């Protein structure tokens, strides 16, 4: 009980100190990454300037997948070990993942129109990423669909775990099926095939998006913990105050951070 309470408290202390620094580094990385992508990176010999969409599209796609993996792992930890921060982390991360997936889909569409001649095609890669977007939305909806927050969290965790099967489908869709989408050129056996002049800004943008995820994650987790504590205080009053004196609920009825 004490350790359960101590973990969110320690999290609040540590994350409170890290948040401004993380925010500053994230902003610098984003500015450097965007400047590099738009000004310094060379146009592609085939795709011309349209290749600059890649510096947004590809890191967003990486984030869409990694954040989902994060949600699924946190959900597993929540289901198995009932760590008090795991559910908070999963629920804080899901909207961030959905946002990256939306960016990936939208920029992909804007890149597909000039390169493929179509805003959208129902092929394996695009469809499986669209499914990923709906998995995020389904998770968010399911978590909020129950009056009892802990039941919603459990249902959401189960959905997140089932949805993991979609991740390898997305990753290998370009190898398994015929598709317009090009195969991997960075994360492949035998090393990247992309030129260094484009690889570097791509990695800077990926790092910037990763930092943005961490900053948003801490921010949203702190928000959730603040809101939980405020709800508990409204229900049960300040600990140690006699304002609610009579009718003080028994300890077992307290939702200790959960």
């Amino acid at each position, binding site marked *: 009980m004490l350790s359960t309470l101590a973990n969110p408290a320690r999290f609040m202390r540590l994350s409170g100190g890290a948040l401004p620094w993380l925010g500053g580094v994230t902003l610098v990385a984003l500015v450097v990454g*965007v400047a590099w992508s*738009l000004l310094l990176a060379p*146009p592609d010999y085939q795709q*011309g*300037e*349209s290749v*600059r*969409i890649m510096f*947004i*599209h590809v890191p*967003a796609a990486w984030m869409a997948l990694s954040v989902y993996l994060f949600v699924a792992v946190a959900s597993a930890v929540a289901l198995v070990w009932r760590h008090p921060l795991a559910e908070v982390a999963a629920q804080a991360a899901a*909207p*961030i993942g959905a*946002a*990256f997936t*939306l*960016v990936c889909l*939208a*920029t992909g569409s*804007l*890149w597909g*129109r*000039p390169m493929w001649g179509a805003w959208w095609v129902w092929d394996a890669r695009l469809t499986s990423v669209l499914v990923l977007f709906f998995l995020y939305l389904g998770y968010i909806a399911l978590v909020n669909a129950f009056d009892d927050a802990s039941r919603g969290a459990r249902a959401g965790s189960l959905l997140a775990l089932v949805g993991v099967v979609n991740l390898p489908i997305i990753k290998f869709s370009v190898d398994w099926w015929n598709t317009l989408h090009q195969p991997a050129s960075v994360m492949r056996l035998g090393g990247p095939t992309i030129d260094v002049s484009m690889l570097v800004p791509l990695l800077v943008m990926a790092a910037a998006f990763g930092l*943005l995820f961490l900053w*948003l994650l801490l*921010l*949203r987790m*702190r*928000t959730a913990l*603040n*809101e939980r*504590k*405020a709800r508990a*205080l*409204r229900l049960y009053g*300040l600990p140690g*105050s006699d304002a609610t004196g009579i009718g003080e609920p028994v300890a077992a009825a307290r939702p200790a951070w959960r």
Partner: protein
Amino acid sequence: MTGGLADYFAMGGYAGFVWPAYAVALAVLGGLAIHSWHRYRASRDALDRLQRPAGARR
């Protein structure tokens, strides 16, 4: 890089795709960041008010 700024913004004819792509990313991620930041501030202020009621008990 011959025609200067106008040439740059034309993005070799892909202006209608490159700029919207960056704008969408800014709108979605920036929107989420601003929304999350406002909710964070609100949650912190609400908690502060609850923990320090008027006429502080301590």
